[in-house]
Every structure is written in structure tokens, then in C-alpha cells.
């Protein structure tokens, strides 16, 4: 299965093909494997250099697992992850040995959701920031110190903070530290796992603006995991929608929001609170529960909750295919071609005050 964006090959920084991660479910004294949680299954997409790719979906759908596979935090069950390395070639990064992984860390970094848990409380800001440089034996201690100061400037923190410990910072400041630590190695790709979910709206706005400034200044590429679709609409260029471990839609952000092709995407969009009381709308209420990845439904995983389902949806799993010849959007739905689904209102539909 080829992902659509592979056509523009030279733009591609990361290419994921048929990615799988199955966690064994073990029971009993001898820990016999009695089944698998298919946390990530048949996931294929590509990320272009300089873009922000959004990944959205319900809790437990496999977003973090996808991120950790790209980071090579654990081995894949199947599939390939190709990264454009310094050589200029796309190289498979699955199954690297520990020495090769060490070099990979210079190119891919991660920003975590919880700015409280992700910083070691016993390290000063100086140590936190220079630690990656020390591990990679980059620069003299003066050079490292200078770089740490540069990073603080870049993320909008005062240089005096170098001697402080994380507990003396607010949530927003800690998230700035987390970002500084991720970019100090000058990575190409930064994987952000819900970077603003734990922050207040005003702080969230500051961090989103910061991420955007850094992208312009340093030419970063982001994979941006989020459950807040308003944030995704704001920062992402393209969006992947996951449901129970699989991609169900992949499209340019404007297209996805204005003309969703998968009923699950439509339901997600319909559920987002619209921050304008004059646009209160009829919602599509999804019945049922989020499917269990250890025991997914037959046919299309979404069929038990889908209002558009036909007989085929209960028995046959749809392929992840191009929506039509003339787009690069991909969708996994038997009825994608015939359905006309509802997106979010655009400026044109808004009542003028």
C-alpha cells in the first residue's frame, strides 16, 4: 500500500509504511499470551519537510504509540519508518542498533504532554538543557552554556533561570523548557504529543505561537498529536485521523475540516464545541462505545457507531485508498464516494454581526 504523498518524493522527510505495533495480552501464572492489543495497525503516511502533520483521534486510538514508534522508543511489530537522513536519502530507522539510535536522537526529538512529569526535578535548568549536548559530546562546557542561553532566549525565558529547578516554574514555563530541551540538538523532526493539552488557554496561545515561530526560524518539521481539533485546525497543514489503531482519513487541513470524507471525522468535527454561541448546531451523536483495540469489531471498525452503515460495512473491512483521482486525500470507508458529509462552518457561513 502506497501513501499518496509519496508522489512528491523529494519533499518527504519521514515515510511510514504499513506500521504495526501489537502489545501482547498476558494472563495467568506463566504469563501465557492470550491475545494482542493492536495499538497501531497498517498505518501509512508521509511527512513533508517543514510541514506540521496533525494526528487526531479518541483516547486509546494509538496516537502516542505511533509517536513512540517514530522515536524508536520500542521496536515495531511490522512495517517500515523511513527518515531522510543527513545523507539526503530516505533510510529505514526500524531495527537500528543502539549506536545508530544514538545518532537518530540528534534528528528526532519529542515534546511531551505533561510539562511537570517530563523534567527531572533534581536537575537545574542548565543541566536539563545541556544534558543532551553532554551525552552527544557536543562542544566545550562554555559552548554548551552559550547554547543553553541561546535556547532560553529563543523560547522566551530569561537567562537568569539557568540555576533554577523546574518546580519554580509555571506550567507554561515548563513547557517552554521542554521545547528548549527538544530543539537544542537542532533536530529535523519534533514529535509533539499533546504539547498544550495541560495548559490554560492564554498559556496555550503563547506556546502555540512559540512553536510556530521556531518552525519558521529553524525550519522544523512537526508531528503534532492533539485531541483539540481547534488547535489542530490552527497549527496543522495536513491531518491524519486515527480510529482504533488505524488511519481512517488523511487530508489537507482545510479539506478535512470543510469536506470530511469519513463518517468518524464528521462526527468528531460535529462534536467540537464551536466558540461562538450564534453557531450552536445540531450534533451527530455517536452511540456506543469506543471500540476495544484488543477485540475490534468485524468489518469496518467504526460500523457499530456509524449512522451511514450498510450491510458490507459489517462484514468487509474497507481499504485505505485515495478519495478520488484528483486529490491526495485518503480515506477508509466503503461509502466515501457517495456520501456528502458535513464539515465545520467556514467564514462565509457565519452570520455577520
Amino acid at each position: 500500500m502506497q501513501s499518496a504523498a509519496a508522489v512528491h518524493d523529494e519533499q518527504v522527510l519521514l515515510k511510514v509504511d504499513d506500521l504495526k505495533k501489537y502489545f501482547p495480552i498476558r494472563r495467568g501464572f506463566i504469563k501465557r499470551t492470550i491475545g494482542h492489543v493492536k495499538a497501531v495497525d497498517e498505518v501509512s503516511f508521509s511527512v513533508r519537510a517543514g510541514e506540521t502533520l496533525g494526528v487526531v483521534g479518541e483516547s486509546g486510538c494509538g496516537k502516542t504509540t505511533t509517536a513512540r514508534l517514530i522515536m524508536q522508543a520500542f521496536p515495531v511489530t511490522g512495517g517500515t519508518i523511513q527518515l531522510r537522513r543527513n545523507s539526503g536519502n530516505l533510510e529505514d530507522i526500524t531495527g537500528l542498533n543502539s549506536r545508530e539510535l544514538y545518532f537518530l536522537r540528534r534528528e528526532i526529538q519529542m515534546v511531551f504532554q505533561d510539562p511537570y512529569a517530563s523534567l527531572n526535578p533534581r536537575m537545574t535548568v542548565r543541566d536539563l538543557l545541556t544534558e543532551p549536548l553532554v551525552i552527544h559530546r557536543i562542544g566545550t562546557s562554555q559552548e554548551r552554556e552559550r547554547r543553553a542561553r541561546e535556547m532560553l532566549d529563543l523560547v522566551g525565558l530569561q537567562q537568569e533561570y539557568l540555576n533554577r529547578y523546574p518546580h519554580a516554574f509555571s506550567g507554561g514555563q515548563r513547557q517552554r523548557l521542554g521545547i528548549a530541551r527538544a530543539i537544542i540538538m537542532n533536530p529535523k523532526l519534533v514529535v509533539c504529543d499533546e504539547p498544550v493539552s495541560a495548559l490554560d488557554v492564554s498559556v496555550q496561545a503563547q506556546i502555540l505561537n512559540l512553536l510556530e515561530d521556531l518552525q519558521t526560524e529553524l525550519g522544523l518539521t512537526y508531528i503534532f498529536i492533539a485531541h483539540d481539533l481547534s488547535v489542530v485546525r490552527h497549527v496543522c497543514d495536513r491531518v491524519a485521523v486515527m480510529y482504533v489503531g488505524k488511519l481512517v482519513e488523511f487530508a489537507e487541513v482545510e479539506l478535512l475540516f470543510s469536506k470530511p470524507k469519513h463518517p468518524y471525522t464528521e462526527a468528531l468535527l460535529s462534536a467540537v464545541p464551536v466558540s461562538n454561541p450564534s453557531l450552536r448546531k445540531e450534533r451527530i451523536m455517536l452511540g456506543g462505545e469506543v471500540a476495544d483495540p484488543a477485540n475490534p469489531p468485524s468489518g469496518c471498525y467504526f460500523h457499530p457507531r456509524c449512522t451511514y452503515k450498510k450491510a458490507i460495512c459489517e462484514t468487509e473491512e474497507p481499504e485505505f485508498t485515495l478519495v478520488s483521482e484528483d486529490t491526495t486525500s485518503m480515506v477508509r470507508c466503503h461509502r466515501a464516494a457517495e456520501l456528502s458529509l458535513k464539515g465545520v462552518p467556514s467564514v462565509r457561513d457565519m452570520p455577520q454581526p
Partner: protein
Amino acid sequence: MTQPIRIHNDPGVILELLNLRTVFETRGGTVRAVNGISFYTRNDTVLGVVGESGCGKTVMAHSILRTVDPMGGKVADGNIFFRRKNGEVVDIASLPSEGRQLRSLRGSEISMIFQEPMTAFSPVYTIGQQIMEVITLHQKIPSRQAKAKAIEMLGRVSIPKPEVRVDAYPHQLSGGMRQRAMIAMALSCQPKLLIADEPTTALDVTIQAQILELMVALQREFEMNIIMITHDLGVIAELATDVVVMYLGSIVEKAPVGEVYSNPKHPYTKALQESIPRVEGSVSKKLATISGSVPSAKNIPPGCPFHPRCREFMQGQCDVHVPTLETLSADHTVACWLYGGGE
């Protein structure tokens, strides 16, 4: 400063706070978590309470139930007038702590939904047993009927197979289901006032939408007043009829929801509005931000609490004198010197 007490003149008013102050005495000093707030709500209102982390939303909710006492807090000043089901108006602020009167209000006339659903249920009884207990406490009905009612309530909060789940223990439900079960329990006594503190932040958007819809439907059906605490302005826009904006323990603006979004007055309300990314409409690339950060509630700035971060700060006025809530139009009040607020 004398304010009119509305609850005595308008039978639709359920709750009226007058100059409520709640403090925590700590070793580091006095935390003025709720610093003199006044508002009223009616039986047809869903009142949204918004404000950044630490502004006193949760403490305000716990003050109304007087559950701040066991938290180490104290209602230091002001009144909390509440109209009981029998029409009688009581001042909750003056009731003895943990007394019989308070206990008879909690869970039967005023219910609260917490952010963390695990704390609301006891792990050793089934969900059904716990909901039935609430029902039979206030309605003398046989247990078969109470169980049927519990199943009905679980069904109404969209828990699949409620007739099975009624016999489940809390740990056997997923986080989202537990949250819904807690809402079912809170609503099963048909309270007059429901205080929901971030009831959907732990939930997925699709489930959140279901729960919010359900709460509005039940509000209409039972003529119940809802106070909905959240930091999500989108949730407020979808659900609330009126909005209270809090900053550092004070109310800076109160207005009908349409007014807050189309005609915000306080610089803080305006700034909050501009800082949220929107799912609808045009996407501007830069979000507006509020400079600086929220000061600590131990060190509330003099004058208007927002003045150090305000774009329209007037020296000699805003940093010296405290603005009071000024009425702009029927339901729109704002505490800001730009609008002449003050004594």
C-alpha cells in the same frame, strides 16, 4: 456598599452570592481564593464560570456546598442565599459546619459533579447500589422501583447495557463511563442546583458532546439551575445561557452568553476570547496572547487584580482603586475603570 438582594423578590432566583470571601490560612500567608464575589442565578440558567487555573472556580463551588471547611478553608465573609425546594431561603454561609441542615441540602437539593469521578464512588459497592441509595434517601420508594430508576438514569447518560452495568463496581467501568455514572448519580435526586466542576475535561470530544447535550436536556426537564465550571470557552459557548468570568478570586464580568462573545467589555474577557484557536471561521496564523502570568492568590495586586497584565491600564487609577461590578445593561455587569466602575 449595599447591593440589592434579589432572591427575596424574585421566586425564580435559586442562588445568590453576596460579597463571598473564602480564605485558606497557610504558613506562607493568607490565600484569598475567593475574594468578594456576588452573582445570582435563576432556575432557567446554565451559568458558565470561566477563568484560568487557580482563579478560584473550584473553591467557589466548594464554598456553596460548604465542603471547603474540611479542605481547611473558611467562608470568611458574605452570604450564600439558596432557595430550597419548599421555597424557604437559607443562608448557607451561616449554617453550622457539617450540621444536619447542610447535610440535608447536599445531594438532595444541591448536587456536585467533580472532575475526578473515582472519588465520588465507594469502591466496595456497585454503581447501582450507590445510585439507589441517593434515590431512596429522598424518595420513599421500594428498592425494585429504585433499581429501575437507577437503570433508567444510567441509560439516559448513554451507558451501554445499563441493566448489566448497574451491577458493576466502579473499577469495572472505563473512565468515561464512570464520569457518566457519576452524572447519573448526581441527577437521580433531581436537585435544584447542579454544580459541575470541569465535568467533561477527562472525556473524548464525542462523549463530551453527548454529556453536555444530556445536561441541557435535563436542565429544561427538571427546571434545574446548572453552574458549569470549565476553562473551555467552546463548552460555554455551546451550553451556557449566562457567563461569569473570574480572575484571581474576583468576578470581572458577567453577561448573557451572546454578549460575552459578541460584545465583551472587560480587557481580560476580550484577551481570553482572542487567545483561543477556533475550529470555525478563518484561521489567522498568530494567536493573541496575554502578557505576563497570573499572580499568586497570596499576593493579589492592589487595585484591579488584572492591572499588571492589562492593555488598557490607567496609572494612578487601576493600580490603586478596586473597581466594583458596574451594571451596563439589564444583565451585563463589568468590574473595570474603563466603564466607570467603582465607588
